[in-house]
């Protein structure tokens, strides 16, 4: 059986709130091999990718208290950790991050918001899968670090228009979640 997005959120929250090692092992089993593949696509050799994937997963444990299911899916959150690792290690520079949002007045996240965000993330993945191959490959190349920023700025084949409706929905959800 494949786990849906919500199961990953459940595991992540178990790591965050209960330091649950079994939940961590489930996340590790699913995401570490993807992070390793991502880093190898970005130019790391197998040894370096293995090490960085381990570090990415260790960061997930250490920074679990920053995970907010209202603002990101587990895959998105891990992507940002792995991306920053890639920039540190492969480009030897930093990736400055925005200031953290101050905690809102309600400490308890709104479950409906979190569920809706996970749903949008899933649909964004489906929209990506449904793109014509050429366009999908371009998006993947951009996120795997194969396009320079000027290539992203000039690349006319990037299907930003096509997936804009999906991005738009994800955006509306995030706006709502930050209110």
């Amino acid at each position, binding site marked *: 059986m494949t786990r849906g997005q919500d199961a990953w959120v459940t595991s992540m929250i178990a790591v965050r709130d209960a330091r649950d090692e079994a939940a961590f092992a489930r996340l590790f089993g699913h995401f570490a091999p993807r992070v390793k593949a991502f880093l190898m696509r970005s130019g790391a050799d197998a040894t370096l990718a293995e090490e960085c994937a381990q570090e990415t997963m260790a960061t997930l444990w250490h920074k679990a208290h920053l995970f907010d299911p209202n603002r990101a899916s587990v895959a998105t959150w891990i992507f940002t950790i792995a991306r920053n690792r890639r920039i540190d290690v492969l480009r030897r520079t930093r990736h400055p991050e*925005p200031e953290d949002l101050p905690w809102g007045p309600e400490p308890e996240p709104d479950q409906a918001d979190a569920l809706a965000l996970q749903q949008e993330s899933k649909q964004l993945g489906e929209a990506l899968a449904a793109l014509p191959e050429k366009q999908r490959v371009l998006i993947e190349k951009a996120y795997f670090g194969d396009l320079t920023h000027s290539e*992203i700025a000039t690349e006319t084949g990037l299907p930003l228009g096509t997936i804009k409706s999906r991005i738009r929905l994800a955006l509306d959800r995030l706006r709502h979640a930050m209110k």
Partner: protein
Amino acid sequence: MTMHDINHHLTDKLLMAYSAGALPEAFSLAVATHVSMCDECRARLGAYESLGGAVLERADTVAMAPDSLDVTMARIRNGAPVVNTPAPHKRGVLPAPLCDYVGGDLADVRWRSIGMGVKQAILPTSRDATARLLFIPAGAAVPDHGHRGTELTLVLQGAFVDETDRYGPGDIEIADEDLHHMPVADIGADCICLAATDAPLRFRGMIPRLAQPFLRI
């Protein structure tokens, strides 16, 4: 954290390039600082990062080493414990990403005069682009210049006006080869900006051109 109405935002392509990790460090700093001040762009960035998450989720897999989970658990046990509550950032003038680069807040910036009352402080980033803080006294002008590459100018305090519009706190101007401008600080207050460029500026006047190699602008 929106302090004022922000009218000039990041483009989709800059947000995508930032989320993909493709920008030079100086540009990433300008993006992260604008996002710290602008909830709208923070939400838009979240959407582009979701796209990165979708790419990762769909990515191929490469098997981890057989003992990798144990090794990672050992890393976790030996690793420095992360403080559970990040120290609340005391809000001065500079948003957190900039404070990291300055090593403090506005009072800690080490300014160097570049003439006519204008001061700058170059921030330590990778050399593929340059990030600098600019201090423009109320009513003063930055010499008329054009751009070879891209220049991002983010207002942190005060405001400036150029041929295109008025830019207040949180506004970011994205200038490319086509723009030749002479930003003038609002008369009401000194203007402090973060400017990121990936190529030297092109000045029109003789004096700034001569001074350029020494000032690194």
